[in-house]
């Protein structure tokens, strides 16, 4: 038997720490951290960009509308989104799916590279009787499961109805990626955090529309404000037949679709 220091076998082994020295070190470390925090409070915050200071998020509620009958599947939206938001290769904040149904009602669905570079003329198998494109993005659900599962409060819904991820706070656990029934989230390999469509929050709250809406050459994508009675989106929602993806999940998607087929999930 070796002699036992402090009457405890293995205590402080490796670092050679006794309880007393450990507590001493802890005090030093806390003091250093505390002084760091004080310095952090004194230093001024970083300069903000050109932000519209008059924007009041309690007076807006954004909703999105996609007309699948207008979409031509050119992929402009997906390319604009990547350029606007630095979306890494292989990930998509928005993408386009092509649906083709034959006479038997069997669906052939494809989305090569998210439809970012358009679609090629390839056989769907069988006689195509019905075919269309469906652009997809985060549905910014009013009852979203993704923010509920976040263990650290890094994902949240803004008062104007946009679901966002705080990448400074996100720990990259991926719970939200699994919680989203629409596959709208991914882990960004560059930041190692959850990433998703923000409805271009930096544009929307500063007087612009999202990059995908602005770039669409056929007006298949619209974003509008439910709180503004003059916004044309309210007339469309009030008078036309609209639908959401997977309403049975009760997530209350805020992306509406017109001309949606029941085959689309």
């Amino acid at each position, binding site marked *: 038997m070796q002699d036992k220091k402090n009457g405890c076998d293995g205590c402080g082994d490796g670092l050679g720490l006794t309880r007393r020295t450990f507590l001493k070190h802890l005090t030093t470390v806390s003091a250093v951290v505390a002084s760091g925090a004080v310095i952090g409070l004194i230093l001024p915050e970083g300069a903000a960009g050109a932000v519209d200071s008059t924007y009041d998020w309690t007076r807006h509620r954004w909703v999105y509308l996609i007309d699948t009958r207008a979409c*031509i599947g050119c992929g402009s939206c997906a390319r604009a989104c990547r350029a*606007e938001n630095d979306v890494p290769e292989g990930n998509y904040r928005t993408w386009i799916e*092509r649906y083709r149904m034959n006479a038997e009602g069997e669906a052939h669905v494809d989305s090569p590279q998210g439809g970012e570079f358009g679609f090629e003329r390839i056989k769907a198998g069988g006689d195509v009787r019905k075919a269309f494109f469906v652009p997809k993005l985060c549905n910014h659900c009013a009852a979203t499961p993704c923010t509920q599962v976040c263990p650290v409060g890094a994902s949240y819904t803004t*008062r104007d109805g946009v679901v966002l991820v705080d990448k400074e706070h996100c720990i990259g656990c991926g719970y939200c990626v699994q919680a989203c029934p629409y596959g709208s989230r991914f882990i960004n390999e560059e930041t190692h955090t959850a990433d998703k469509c923000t409805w271009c929050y930096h544009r929307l709250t500063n007087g612009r529309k999202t990059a995908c809406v602005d770039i669409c*050459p056929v007006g298949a994508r619209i974003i509008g404000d439910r709180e503004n009675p003059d916004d044309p989106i309210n007339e469309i929602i009030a008078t036309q037949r609209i639908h959401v993806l997977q309403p049975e999940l009760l997530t209350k998607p805020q992306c509406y679709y017109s001309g949606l087929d029941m085959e689309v999930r």
Partner: protein
Amino acid sequence: MRQDSPLWHAKHVVRAFLLLIIAVIALVLLRSLLVPDSWGQFGWYRGDNIAEQRAKEQRHGGNISCLECHDQEYETIAGAGHANVKCEGCHAPVALHAVDGEWVKEMPVRREAELCLNCHQWLDARPRAFPQVRPREHVEEQGGEFGPAVCFDCHDPHAPL
């Protein structure tokens, strides 16, 4: 302290109480260090993130952002079949080319049939009313020979047809 004082026998209680106080102070201190300042400002998240999200750079400026230097192209597009097609859709976001009127980088000009076919290749999923071509047949009908930039022999992308 005298050994017959009741507090002498309560020493273990005093120690436990002191430890509890230290633990509470440590918790409060750690919490104040670890929880971000703006936490809970609007909800169970970091309130400062709203401003951070809003301050991100806007890269697409729309056709109007091209007007100052490219007024001729701006007018041409606005008055022709591609009036709804955005400059940045075929070229690139304006921020990659010019910021605050300062030239940054050459704007890409893709004189490729592939660019046109992104929208105009005949596809069964496209709306029937949208102008589409079967490129090889279309070029051969016109007596030409299909090549990677053949579209531009007849069509001006700023004012097609």
